[in-house]
């Protein structure tokens, strides 16, 4: 019998837990020739506001140890062009499209969500209340429990689509934000967005990216992200979508064992755009070796028994 990799996020059924993370996969169509988009559990679009946005001046990224800092600044085509130009093509390809919704005000989150509710082919809304790179809105909501509750409540009332706030790790206790989102009616939470970071060129004494500050992603952040997913999983009942430096099936499984129902792959997609089938194969291989019939049985199946001496490598 074929291994069952399917997972459910509320009413949303995905054939597998692998989702392309926002900002790391363009609008999905850029990867059309690289991977069959219908093979992915889902694709999250770049963050969208009502209007088009130019983003920050380059340089926008810098590599750091086992990771990268980015400050793209949410360059994007706006929700209307997305619905008109991208969504029909994503539908044609059988992609399960999650749309990353941004706003500078609470009303903008609601308005963008309404536009998407009226469109055909949106699987879910991921609320971007965690981008560290823009001045207004965004992370201001995500860094306040009240702000998180208010945005999620307002969008919840405006749409029947699944609502998934994406949480920032730049807070003291991320699980309390997952709880606020759950209380406000979120269908799931996704975490983590990037860690606020900076890098200086010591030769010139100037910043390495134009925005000075940016968000750190990649394998460097993975252990912190796993810990945060585990904390959220213990506190809330809604599904947790985990991400942060996933490069292969082992990394994906680590998040699932910590409590993630699904996982997103971001930076690794830049390193290896053909990562998707490799991780899918790796998951099937693990299930065969460990005699796991349903991948979803592994969600939160982490065993906190301390490791035996000498076997924890």
């Amino acid at each position, binding site marked *: 019998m074929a291994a069952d990799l399917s997972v459910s996020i509320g009413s949303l059924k995905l054939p597998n837990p692998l989702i392309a993370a926002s900002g790391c996969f*363009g609008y999905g169509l850029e990867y059309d*020739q*690289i991977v069959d988009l219908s093979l992915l559990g889902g694709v999250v679009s770049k963050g969208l506001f009502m209007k088009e946005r130019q983003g920050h001046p*380059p340089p926008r990224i810098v*590599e750091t*140890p086992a990771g990268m800092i*980015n400050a793209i600044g949410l360059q994007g085509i706006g929700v209307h062009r997305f619905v008109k130009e991208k969504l029909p093509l994503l539908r044609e390809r059988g992609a399960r499209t999650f749309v990353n919704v941004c706003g500078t005000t609470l009303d903008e989150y609601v308005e963008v969500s309404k536009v998407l509710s009226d469109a055909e082919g949106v699987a879910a809304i991921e609320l971007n209340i965690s981008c560290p790179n823009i001045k207004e809105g965004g992370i201001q909501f995500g860094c306040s429990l009240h702000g998180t509750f208010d945005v999620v409540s307002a969008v919840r009332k405006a749409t029947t689509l699944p609502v998934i706030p994406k949480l920032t790790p730049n807070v003291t206790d991320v699980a309390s934000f997952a709880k606020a989102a759950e209380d406000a009616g979120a269908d799931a939470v996704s975490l983590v967005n990037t860690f606020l970071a900076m890098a200086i060129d010591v030769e010139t004494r100037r910043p390495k990216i134009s925005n000075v500050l940016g968000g750190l992603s990649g394998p460097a952040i993975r252990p912190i992200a796993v810990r945060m997913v585990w904390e959220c999983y213990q506190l809330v009942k809604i599904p947790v979508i985990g991400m942060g430096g996933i490069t292969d099936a082992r990394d994906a499984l680590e998040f699932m064992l910590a409590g993630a129902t699904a996982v997103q792959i971001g930076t690794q997609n830049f390193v290896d*755009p*053909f990562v998707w089938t490799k991780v899918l194969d790796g998951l099937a291989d693990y299930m065969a070796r460990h005699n796991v019939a349903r991948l979803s049985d592994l969600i939160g199946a982490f065993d906190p028994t301390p490791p035996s001496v000498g076997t924890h490598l």
Partner: protein
Amino acid sequence: MPPIDIDATVIANARLSSEYSVLSLAAPEVGARALPGQFVMVKPAGVTDPLLRRPFSVFEILRDAKGVTTGISILNKRAGRSTRRLYELEAGDVVSCLGPLGQPFKTVASPARAWMVAGGVGLAPFATLAETLATLKTDTTLFYGARTGDELFYLDFFERLGVKLVLATENGARGTAGRITLPLEGALQALGGGDSAMVYACGPEPMLAAVAGLAARYHQPSQVSVERVMGCGLGGCYSCVVPVKHGDEEANLVRSCISGPVFDGAELVWD
């Protein structure tokens, strides 16, 4: 067609100087498809430092004695951690190589001439362009500037293809003393009415801006190959944007990996 991603064995890493090397890669499928001006994303295989690949113009298409394509080379200049790692690679090492990527140069044929303007490591895309132009029998000149005479590489390669050479060095050791834009402007001034030259350029951005400006001033078309910090090479990350302006529209930030790296010099907006 999707790009090819292969773990390519290093055939040779010829050090041209303490900074420059030509890294030859066994990537026949990439070589068979690469067009002049296209690039590959490269890093040592199986390591997380560097994590991301870096973009390199395809320098040469490698062929065996029978003319069968065996791979590509890239012209590498040590500038940071990643390029240092590539400089240190030896034959038998393996690199991850994704490509060919991006928009190639548009070629020209007689009566138009082709003027390729290279600054330093910006020589990289012109070996393949010169080969293609030679098959088209286009009258081709390489304007090539470097810091010193020792950093003018592959001159015999271009001469064998019948390319005329105009050289400049900042220390005055060979050719014109100073920037390559000096002899370029002289040539543009000397161009007869009705004659046309397609000006191709690759090098530091101030040089590209100067070349595009000169071409425009003398009413000649230009194509420039830009190099920006790039994350993915596929349009996914939006790191490598450049301001591009069509007609009277406002400038838009455009991804140089998929809309470039070759742009119409008249459409790029320079800082």
